[in-house]
């Protein structure tokens, strides 16, 4: 029977197509299975917040005039952003076709020349995005969300491009350097190295935020420490970022991990418009991100997408001699950015899930659903964000649950934990 089975297998192999007989195929299948398992594990590692809450009427919370105003404001920015993406892709396609001609501007070796092409690629993209950025600034100024000057925006954006240049140089140093040694399988080693760099960056990112100072309001520091204990954390850095010169919009972020764990509050959150209980809700939300290790999970998700992306880049740049050659860099940029655009909705879904979990966890720590509701309403109003955008808009651009979903979540929590709900 065993002999018969062996003979049968041999027959199958003999009649199967060529790719089916290659060991690479099996390796790739194993890799895909491993990828799917890791993605599922990462997705499941974020505790689930209730997705369905009571249905709320946005008009009753925000008023019809605000809904109209925020819809006009958001739709314009969304259309402008979509146009920007189209232009970005067109520019990168052109650069992928003609960018290699810029090699004559280099007297460096292949890695240096690759760096130059990489930087110039991002430079061209920046030039193409400047009009869209300026229009966005104009629109935000028109609606009073930003008061950043056009020249200041240009300068900040240009300086920020310098950081991008340095990062791309580091990435290309690793990529082209390894491709020169490992040829076709460079990406198997390059991807973990780049993930390691991303990990390092995530760790160091709180120290790279400029214009920050420690949080000095004693009551808020006390609140944060109490919430920290509730979440099983300790020693989290509490910083305030000075942004009021550019914007009126409030925000906060959680960054770093381990000893670099930091909560950064924008100073627009502390200018008197928000009550202490509301700021406490923000602190609870950001500390929940840290307690859930969301910055680290972000690196995990990046790794999950980078590894196959690098493999695809290795495949698609073969026509230009592979990533060991600098002329492959413009093609690699196009592939990378296109993949990034394609995967954005997926990563947005991941982000929305993490944000909802942080909201839920913050409510468990503060026990103040009313303050959280009021905060969400005020955040939406000051940022002029649409409380209940279309599903397509959420799918493409939504990194957070909508304001209405977040308010509904507070009612659900109230109902489950305090036994009462006063949905209006």
């Amino acid at each position, binding site marked *: 029977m065993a002999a018969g089975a062996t003979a049968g297998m041999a027959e199958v192999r003999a009649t199967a197509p060529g790719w089916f007989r290659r060991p690479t195929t099996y390796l790739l299948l194993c890799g895909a299975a491993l990828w799917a398992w890791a993605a599922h594990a990462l997705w499941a590692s974020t505790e689930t917040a209730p997705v369905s809450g009571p249905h709320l009427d946005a008009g009753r919370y925000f008023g019809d005039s605000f809904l109209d105003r925020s819809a006009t404001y958001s739709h314009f920015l969304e259309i402008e952003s979509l146009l920007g993406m189209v232009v970005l892709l067109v520019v990168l396609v052109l650069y992928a076709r003609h960018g*290699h001609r810029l090699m004559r*501007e280099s007297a*460096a*070796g292949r890695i*240096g020349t690759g760096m130059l092409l990489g930087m110039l690629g991002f*430079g061209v993209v920046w030039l193409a995005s400047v009009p869209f950025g300026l229009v966005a600034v104009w629109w935000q100024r028109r609606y009073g969300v930003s008061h950043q000057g056009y020249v200041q925006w240009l300068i900040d954006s240009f300086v920020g491009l*310098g950081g991008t*240049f*340095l990062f791309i140089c580091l990435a290309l140093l690793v990529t082209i350097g390894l491709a020169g040694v490992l040829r076709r399988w460079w990406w198997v080693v390059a991807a973990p190295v780049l993930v390691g760099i991303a990990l390092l960056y995530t760790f160091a990112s709180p120290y790279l935020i400029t214009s920050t100072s420690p949080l000095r309001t004693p009551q808020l520091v006390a609140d944060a420490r109490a919430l920290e204990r509730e979440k099983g954390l300790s020693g989290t850095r509490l910083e305030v970022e000075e942004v009021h010169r550019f914007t009126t919009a409030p925000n906060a972020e959680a960054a770093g991990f381990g000893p670099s764990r930091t909560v950064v509050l924008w100073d627009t959150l502390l200018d008197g418009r928000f009550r202490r209980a509301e700021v406490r809700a923000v602190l609870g939300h950001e500390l929940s991100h840290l307690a859930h290790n969301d910055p680290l999970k972000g690196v995990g998700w990046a790794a999950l997408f980078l590894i196959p992306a690098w493999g695809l880049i290795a495949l698609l740049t073969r026509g230009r001699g592979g990533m060991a050659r600098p002329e492959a860099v413009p093609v690699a940029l196009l592939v990378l950015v296109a993949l990034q655009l394609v995967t954005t909705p997926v990563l947005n879904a991941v982000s929305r899930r993490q944000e909802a979990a942080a909201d839920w966890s913050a409510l468990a720590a503060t026990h103040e659903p009313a303050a959280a509701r009021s905060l969400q309403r005020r955040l939406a109003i000051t940022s002029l964000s649409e409380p209940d955008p279309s599903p397509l808009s959420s799918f493409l651009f939504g990194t957070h649950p909508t304001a209405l979903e977040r308010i509904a979540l507070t009612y659900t929590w109230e109902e489950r934990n305090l036994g009462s709900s006063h949905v209006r």
Partner: protein
Amino acid sequence: MASDRGVRPVRLTIADDLRRNRATVFFRFLLALPLMVWLVVWAVGAFVVAVVNWGATLVLGRSPSSLHRFLARFVRYATHAFAYLNLAAGPFPGFLGRPGYPIDLEIDQPERQNRWSVACRLVLAVPAMLLVAVLAGYGANIYSALNSRVGLSTVLSMAAFLGWFSALARGRMPRGLRDLAAYGLSYGAQLWAYLLLLTDRYPSSDPLKAIGPLPVRNAPVRLEAGGDLRRSRLTVFFRVLLALPHLVWLTLWGILAVGAAIINWFATLIRATPPRAIHRLLAAYLRYQAHVTAYLFLIGNPFPGFTGSEGTYPVELHVDGPQRQNRWTVLFRLVLVVPAFFILAVYNLLLTVVALLGWFASLITGRMPTDLRNAGALVVGYLAQTYAYLLIVTDTYPNSGPAEPRPAPAFPRQPLPIRAPAAPPPVPV
């Protein structure tokens, strides 16, 4: 570096023997006071005449001879006075601006000028004014001479400041400092001649065109500014950002170079000759520094490599092999190098202005003007010489003035192929 020296309508000539009388050097600033007072009086008259000359040149298309003569004499007198004040010349000059002074000015007869250029002369002169602010103060005028705040921030006054000490000690003005002062004076005179409509030839910042016969230097560290003047507008626009990875790498390499220099210092103190391996490392560092500086400030066009290899960049630094050095100068190198860093401070200002003007020019025309490129190359060369002296690569003191470079083989242009026909040999980073 091609030069059209000798055909410019405003030319500085030098017949100075470098000897200085210590007493007149010591009191030079006070001795120059009557010259400055007379210059102010003359300047008032020259201003009135210049306005008349402007109207007349606009109508006639050329400057009337009498007005031209008066204004030429004024510019010549100003050059004499400032040459005296800044120790570029020894003898006390006359008050009439007659020819024959050791630092003199030759100005051609009036020629036909473009009326548009005459009408817009003040606007057109703005870039040159920016340069002269660094080279000689605002037009080598009295304000810059009397205002100490402005004074030491110009090439001319820094040369005078350092030359004062040297001339007092040795009774001679160092050739490099004298030529440096002459470079500033030459540019100032050219600008005044351009502003006063004595010529419509734009002032040249090229140090090789600034003064008469230049010394041919056989320095152990010398810069060869080759390559074409074409510039890619895209890389020019992003030049500062494109140089960022090089600046990071240069900083890291600089840390290594400091360590190597300390070892070099001890080794040269003992053996009198730098160890070959350390010398090679430091020479590569200096070359890389020159490549990066040239790239950042638009003196060179292509993106440089990261290794500082010789023969890889059109703006090339040649460093001779290790030579025997005077142990005393090695011992006190950190002190001895201080005056060179003074010069370097003002030279860096010049380089910044050169890069700024070159940036606009290259973006508009796609070419770096030769004059600006050569002015920048002078600074990059001086920077390399200063660091070579500091890092004990050589004991030849940096030459601050312009000099004819020793002929060197042309830059071998070896651009990377657009498409590699086969597996190429590995090229280092």
